[in-house]
Structures are given as C-alpha cells and as structure tokens.
C-alpha cells in the first residue's frame, strides 16, 4: 500500500486543480471537535480506574451497546457512566469517520485525500478494537497503548480538517503570490522543521506520560523515576520548541495568519500544560518538599477528588490537544512553504 502521508509539494500541484468541498471540511471539523470530548472521557476512565466498569465488549452487561437502559447508564455508578459514555462517543467518532469517507469519495477530487480518509476510518476501527481488547484481556498495557493511539487519531482528524479546508486548497497560492511580490519569504524551513519537531517531541512526551499514568505494581521504582525524569526533560524540550516557534512568529511578520494563530494557540496550550503537569504531581503525590510552605504542608490529597481528577484528566487532554495543534501548525507551515516556493513572482 502506498504511503498515504501527503507530500506537501505534490499536494499543492493537485489540490490547486480540485475544488473545495464544504461538506467534507465541515465533517472533518465536526469529527475533530467530537474526538476531543472522547479524549477527555477516555482520560476520566483511567483517572477513575473505570476501564473494567463494563466487563463485556462490544455489548454492555449483555445489552446491545445502544440499547443499554439510559436510567442505569446516566444515573448509575459514575464509573459506568464514564466507560459507557466513552464507548458511545467512540462510536460517534466511527460514524462520523464513515460519513467523512463517503463525503470525500463523492465530493473531493483528490485521490490521496480519499485514501487518507480511508486510513482515518481504519484508524478509528483499530482504536475501537484496542479499546475492546483492553476490556476482554483486562490488560493495563493494552489500556496504555489505547491511551497513546487515541491522541494520534485526534491529530489525524485535525490534519484532515486542515487538509480539507478552503485555505489549504485555494489560499496559499494567493498568499504566496502576494508575499513574493512584496519580497517576503512567507514561511522558512526553520519554522517548518521546528513545528514538525514539536509534533514529534510532544508525542514522545505523551508516550512517556502514559508510562507514568498506567503504572503497575510490577514496575521498579528506578524505572518509574527514570520515566519521570524523562518526562521532565521532554517537557523542557517541548517548551523550548514552542518558545522557538513563538519567537519565529513574532520576528517574522510575513507568516500567514493561519500559521501564526496556530502557533499562538499551541504555545498557550504548552504553558497551560506545564501548569497542569505541576498540578498533576501535587494532586497525585504532593511535593517532596511540602514542609517549606504552610499551604503545601497543610494540603491533604483527596483520592478520586473532584479537583484532583479534573487536573489530572485536563493534563491528559491538553497533551492530546498539543499534539493536534502541533499537527495543525506543521501542516500549515509546510503547506505555506510548499506553495510559496512553487508560485513565481509576478
């Protein structure tokens, strides 16, 4: 099977000749928006150790998933609510992916994009199967893998939204043309590589974070400590790359607004994530030097407490958001650069 990953230069040539489909784009955006709560609820499943709240799959306590009584689901135990909601939201993502494939095959002229939507559908099916395997095998390692691939699907959905947008298909050529005429180099290779590095670093960071989150009693404390140090080191790297992107945006006024906005967003998300990361450690384990401060010394962690769960789950969801935003920045940057180098000056 050919590599479906789009090559920006080739995409530029072909997409210029194809029309923009509002339906495909809207479906992509809806899918992306729908996956974010799915990630949140998935995070809650792990936070509340609710992965085995429904012991069967794909059914729910012997019922067809969709026919499971709402009274039990909505007003029953909280674990059941989050696990079953996660499954239903996953199904919604699957249905939206199917609709997207149909819409793409009917309305989008780009063969590679059609194949991409098929890949997206395969990814959501695989993700669902992984979730099912986690339940049927009752295996935390599978839960960890499921937790790592979820944000990957979120990033794929975000990429689909970018690649189906009017800007992707029509605007870069016009922007590049006007910028070249003004003598500005719109998007340099540095920013493109920086954005790609952010994507890779933030995903690695998520994988290491998953090792901490899905830790089992058999993991030696030395290994866990190593993962924590690695997580801290990667956090520094992600912050450094995000700062580099921000500075590049500030000092390069010729960047397309879409790239700039995405960079500002991802930088804000990284700042938020650092704060949430510190918060996550405090609400899980307290600080090792709590005695230095009266407030920290008087803080008692509440197991499964509302704020504790919110902070931890928000940290997970923001991590996934950073990966998706990095994908958006990288794609827009590469797209902007690819088209600007192809359009001759007037």
């Amino acid at each position, binding site marked *: 099977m050919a590599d479906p990953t789009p090559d920006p230069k080739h995409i530029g040539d072909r997409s210029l000749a194809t029309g923009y489909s509002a339906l495909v784009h809207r479906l992509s955006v809806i899918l992306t928006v729908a996956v974010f709560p799915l990630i949140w609820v998935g995070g809650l499943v792990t936070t509340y*150790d609710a992965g085995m709240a429904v012991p069967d799959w794909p059914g729910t306590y012997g019922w067809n998933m969709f026919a499971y009584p709402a009274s039990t689901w909505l007003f029953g*135990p909280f674990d059941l609510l989050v696990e079953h909601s996660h499954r239903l939201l996953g199904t919604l993502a699957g249905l939206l992916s199917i609709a997207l494939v149909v819409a793409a095959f009917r309305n989008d002229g780009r063969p590679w994009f059609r194949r991409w939507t098929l890949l997206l559908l395969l990814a959501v099916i695989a993700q669902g199967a992984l979730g099912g395997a986690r339940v049927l095998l009752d295996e935390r390692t599978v839960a960890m893998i499921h937790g790592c691939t979820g944000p990957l699907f979120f990033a794929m959905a975000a990429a689909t939204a970018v690649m189906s947008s009017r800007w992707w298909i029509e605007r870069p050529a016009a922007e590049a043309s006007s910028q070249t005429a003004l003598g500005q180099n719109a998007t340099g290779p540095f920013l493109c590589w920086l954005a790609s590095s952010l994507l890779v670093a933030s995903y690695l960071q998520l994988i290491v974070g998953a090792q901490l989150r899905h830790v*089992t*009693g058999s993991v030696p*404390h030395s290994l866990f400590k190593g993962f924590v140090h690695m997580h801290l080191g990667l956090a520094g790297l992600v912050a450094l790359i995000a700062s580099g992107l921000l500075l590049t945006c500030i000092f390069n006024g010729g960047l397309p607004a879409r790239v700039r906005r995405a960079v500002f967003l991802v930088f804000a998300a990284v700042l938020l994530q650092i704060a949430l990361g510190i918060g996550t450690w405090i609400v899980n384990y307290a600080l090792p030097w709590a005695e230095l401060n009266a407030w920290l*010394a008087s803080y008692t*962690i509440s*197991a499964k407490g509302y704020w504790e769960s919110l902070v931890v789950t928000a940290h997970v969801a923001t991590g996934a958001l950073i990966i998706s935003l990095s994908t958006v920045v990288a794609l827009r940057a590469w797209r902007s650069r690819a088209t600007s180098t192809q359009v001759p000056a007037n």
Partner: protein
Amino acid sequence: MRRRSSGFSPQGQGGAEVKHAVALGQADSCSAIPRNQIEMFLVWKFRHLASRGLPARWQTATRAAAFRALIVVGSLLTMAVGCNRQQPSFEPNRVLAKRLELSESVPMEQATADVGQALEVLFGTPDTPKWPEFLDGEQPLISRERLARAGGAVSSDEEGRHFGLFREHCVSCHGTNGDGLGPTAALLNPYPRDFRLGKFKFKSTPIGSKPTRDDLKQLLLRGVVGTSMPSFSLLEDEDLEALTDYVIYLSIRGELERRLLNEAALELDFDGGERVFDEAAKESDPELYAEQMLHIQSQTQRIAKQWSEAESQVVAIEGPPAELPVGRWVDLRAAESINLSQMPDALEQSIARGKQLFQGNVASCAFCHGPEGAGDGQQNNYDEWTRDWTLGFDPRDPEALSPMLEEGALKPRNILPRNLRLGVFRGGSSPADLYRRIVFGIEGTPMPALPMKPDNPQGLTANQVWDIVNYLLNLSDDSLSTATTSDLEGSSQAKNG
C-alpha cells in the same frame, strides 16, 4: 572498521535464550524472560550493528547517547508489546535477605525460596489472597470476603462496587506486598510506609502495640496531611473496611516473612539439610512437613494475636481539667461551671508553662524540634524502617549501601523533626491527638514516649502535658488561643441566653 563490542553478549548472559525464544515465536516467550534481559539484548544488538561500517567519529561521539536512547526506546517497546504481562506476584524481602546474608555470612537463596513457598501456601497470591483457617477465632481479625475484594485486578460492577481496591488505590506507592517500594516510592518524601515491620506511626495504642482497625481506617479517611498519603474519604465504608483488612493481611504476611528469614539465618543449618519449609515433604516426609508447618503456624498466630489484642490496649485520653482551657478543646459542660472571664489569663499562663516544659530537660522537645519548634534541632537520625536494613553499617557509607540498593532498597534519608510552627500535625491536630503523640511517642521514629508521673517520679503530670499542647497550638497560630476562648464565651452565652 569491524570490531566486536565488549559488554553484554547474548551467549554470555542469557541472550541466546532470548534470541531462541523470539526466533521460535513462542507466544509466551515474553512472560518467561525478564524484561531487563530483553533490553540488554537490544543494547547488545545495537552495539553489534553500530560497530559495522560506521564512521569512527559517530561511534565515539554519539554512541553513549544512542545507547541511552536505545534503552529508553527498548523499554517503551517492551512495555508496549506487552512484555510486562506477567501475573502480579509477592516479591520476596530481598533487602532483608541480603542484609542477613552479609551480616551472618550465610547464603539466603534457599531460605528465601522456602519462605516464599510457605507464604504462598498460607496467604495465596495478589490475585487470590488467602487467609489461613487456623487464624479464625471467635472474632475473626479480617473477613475473607473483604480480602478478596481488596485483592486481585481492578474492576467494578453494575452496582458501582469496586474490586481490586489495593491495586487501584495503594499499590503504586506501597508496592504489591506492602513493602513501601512501589513504583513511585523513590520520588516521595516521606517514603511510603513498609507494612512488613508491623509498625504504624499514628494510632491510639502505645509504642510496641499494633494499631486498632479503627486507627487504620481513620488514617485512610483522614489521609496524612502534607504527604503523598491521600484521604480516602470519598470511598464507600465497605471499601475502607476491605482496605483495612488488606493492610493487616499484608502486615502479618510481611512480619511472618521477616521472622522466618531471621530464623533461617540465625538458627538453621542449611548445609546440614535443614529447611524453613519444604512443600515436597508433604508427600515424601509428612512428619517433617507437619513439624515445619506447625512452627510456621505458631509464629503466624503470635503475630495475629498482637493484632487481636490491639483493641484492649487503646489508651483513652481524658480531657484537660475544667479549670485549664485548652485550645480547640471546648467542653461546654465544664465551661458552665467556671469563670470565663479568667480563661484568657489561664490560657496565657498555660502557654507560658508549656514553653518552659518544651524547652526543658524532662520533655526535651527542643533537642529535636529546636528551641522555637521550627524543626531545627538534631537532623541526623533515621527511622526504624531505615535502621532495620542498615543494621550493622553506616547508612552514609555508599559502599556498604550499594548491595542493598541493588536489591531495591531506597536511599536512606534522615528523618527530620517536624516544624511545629507550620501548624500541621500529621497524626491529627486535635488537642487529644497532640496529647497522645507527646505521651506515647510515635512508633518507628525518634519521637519517644514521655516519662510520666506517677510511674516515673521525674516525669511530667497530665496537666503539664496539656500545657505543652497549649504551647504547640499557640506556636502554630497566635490567634488560636484567643479565638478559642471567644468561641467558648460565645457558645456559653448562647447556651445561657
């Protein structure tokens, strides 16, 4: 440039088995091979490949970084492909075995294996914990049903009942067998408690006694302020009861393991064929098996008896005398019969007396906690959980520590006296809690029990201890004494009005 890398070789250190197993595609090969062997094999393989046809500059400059990266990637991959799918097991007390091996110069492998076997017969596994029938008395110490709920894998049912509670809430810090060596342990301060010594800090019984069930349950409910020990107040009562059972179970199991290992090192002649426990003897030599089992049962019963007796050893704390106001201790029945206008003066005098006692030689609080209670007294002590495995050598000696750390022990840390000015008392902040801490000390720590009259003519009276309590409460919050007195007045007026 071709050269053979030094270091790990698959033939030399088990890599051949790894390669063989992987080549055969054995379904369970991963669970049969220790993960670190796979990682070592990956490192060796990488070195082997890296040494072929690559520029010397690359090999020397970036190899170290590449090795580190490979170890990381290898760890991630081995975890990702599910090589940590082995069933959870109770790991033996390797640290104690190593300490005994070094101090007594006896090999401990056989003893460790024997003890592990005996413990599994009596107490089962983390997935299927057992409670020995011979411990069933008139009032069972723990319930088998609750034990089963607390053990095993994490799940919940349609009614919202949780199972695998210990794994859900405790194992990441306290470890599968309650050794305080869970994955997160090295990064926590203080380190998580090791239940296997059978010592618990905050309880209503004197030093040397076990805590009551209620002590443990209260600790779960309240958590330990300022530490990584959370409050489980949001859990159902039956969950707390199940967790309490499981902690007692692990503590008894761990304490028995310690006793048997100590006996093996100090009393048995392994060269002469003596064994702690030999399950095979059940068939081959039933008499020997019965003898071994009887001894192990009697040791277990002794430990369990201490737990059963805990309730009868609770020391009730009577309140302070009516004429002595104590911060936060509002006894309105007594307050009605005393002159409230004199309370602030009485409290002030009590605080002043408490300060003198705190800094004096009998209570000697200032020696550790510093003259003003800021925790700046002696700083070089260790708790008993650290002293236990550093017995016979200096915990600051890296060479002596090395073999123990290799067995999983955590780097020793000094137990620092509390800064009492923060107003945070881990064992509870009520006057009664403080009174109990002062009079009975804190088990496993350098905080001793105070000498008390009339048992000790040089000791303190109960009223003097209440004076110290007042001083401590005043130390942490200057407005507290005033507020308490005004609260008292307000409450009394409300009653009278």
